[in-house]
């Protein structure tokens, strides 16, 4: 990644390439699956792209390597500085929400890197989503002294891919560059992380259904549990993926705005599909069990996708949880009760 060093009054600044190599691309794929994610970072500080001078632009980024790679890739053919903040390896928006991509970290990093001695202007270009953590007017105030002007934050586009058109447009982000999107491709990219992250919950459901599957008319037996739980585990997996995968992909096409309700609907559709396909035992208790369990699981998993989405508010998520968590719990309890009754009959 580092190809050389640029001499400045404060010493040598590492110069990075703008072409991503196979290692960068493989690393990006791996973190999408949560592999090595906690440690996918670059060292905070100042970096050079091309052969920047005292007049070159300063772009501010996070030290999550995926964020940093996006920025340097989109600065190909330019001379610029990249100021990397210590966001503990978290991307700009999440870090801004936590405050690590924040006013104080930026001010501290400006001092620590002695940026004033590297450039002779006071303009910093920040990704717009950093605005959740960085207060532009506070940065100006805090970096101002009697002898020095404060630094001006210019809000750049949301996506690094828009850096070139942004610069061409005289440092103004257009309305399109400023609006966050959530396309099917963007939603799909998030699914591996969500699925791996939520894997523990699925495992917990397996253990639970396995344990209760041991009940029968003759008492309780672990051998029975193995036989009875197998098809049940398959249904649970289907409901889980209906909530965590199918619902996010189809998000705008499923009616209603609450994610939990969307998941409930897809879960009911899953039940209908399985029932019509005659994949389920036809006992009334089994039907009652699954008509409750499948939508409950799907609804819960879909509700958890609110965190991955780009448009849910805290107050809204609290509201839907207040309504749907009790519904999900009730359905799960009754579903399990009917499941056990069906085995004891």
């Amino acid at each position, binding site marked *: 990644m580092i190809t050389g060093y640029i001499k400045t009054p404060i010493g040598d600044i590492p110069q990075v390439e703008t072409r991503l190599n196979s290692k960068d691309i493989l690393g990006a794929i791996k*973190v*999408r699956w949560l592999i090595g994610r906690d440690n996918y970072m670059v060292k905070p500080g100042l970096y050079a792209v091309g052969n920047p001078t005292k007049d070159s632009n300063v772009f501010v980024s996070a030290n999550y390597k*995926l964020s940093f790679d996006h920025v340097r890739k989109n600065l190909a053919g330019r001379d610029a500085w990249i100021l990397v903040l210590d966001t503990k390896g*978290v*991307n700009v*928006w*999440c870090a*801004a*929400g*936590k405050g690590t991509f924040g006013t104080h970290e930026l001010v501290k990093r400006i001092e620590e890197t002695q940026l004033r001695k590297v450039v002779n202007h006071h303009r910093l270009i920040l990704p*717009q*989503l950093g*605005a*959740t*953590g*960085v*207060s*532009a*007017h506070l940065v100006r105030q805090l970096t101002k002294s009697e002898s020095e002007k404060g630094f001006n934050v210019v*809000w750049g586009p*949301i996506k690094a891919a828009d850096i070139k058109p942004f610069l061409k447009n005289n440092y103004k*982000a257009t*309305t399109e560059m*400023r*609006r*966050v*999107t*959530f*396309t099917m491709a*963007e939603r799909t*990219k*998030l699914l591996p*992380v*969500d699925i791996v*992250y*939520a894997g523990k919950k699925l495992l917990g459901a397996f253990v639970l259904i396995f344990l209760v599957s041991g009940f029968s008319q003759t008492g309780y037996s672990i051998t029975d549990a193995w036989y009875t739980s197998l098809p049940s585990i398959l249904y649970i997996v289907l409901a889980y993926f209906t909530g965590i995968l199918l619902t996010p992909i189809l*998000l*705008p096409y499923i009616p209603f*705005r*609450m*994610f939990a309700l969307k998941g409930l609907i897809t879960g009911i559709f899953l039940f209908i599909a399985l029932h019509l396909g005659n994949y389920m035992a036809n006992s009334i208790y089994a039907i009652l069990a699954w008509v409750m369990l499948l939508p409950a699981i799907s609804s819960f998993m879909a*509700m*958890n996708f*609110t*965190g*991955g*989405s*780009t*448009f*849910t*508010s*805290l*107050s*809204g*998520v*609290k*509201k*839907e*949880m207040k309504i749907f968590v009790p519904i999900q719990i009730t359905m799960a309890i009754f579903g399990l009760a009917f499941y056990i009754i069906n085995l004891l009959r």
Partner: protein
Amino acid sequence: MIDFKYLGETVSLILNKEKCNGCGMCVKVCPHAVFEMNGSKAELTLKDYCMECGACQLNCAQNAIKVTVGNGCGCATGIIEGYFGVESECCSDSTCC
């Protein structure tokens, strides 16, 4: 582009127009374009699209904007983990939390 709208009725964003000096910063930082400039004042035109990220509040030098529910993650996983005393990791990747 598909327009994503969440539960507009709960949105706790308040704009105090009297304090607004028309600098236009809120228009620049909002990722859902909920503000528009109307003459020398900002106007809250698409409140239903607000996700309470707090960027406008933080960047309003006039203190004219408040997100009263507190800016946090609109994230069910985070809320549940918080309830059990676990500090939540970021829920997903390019987006968040």
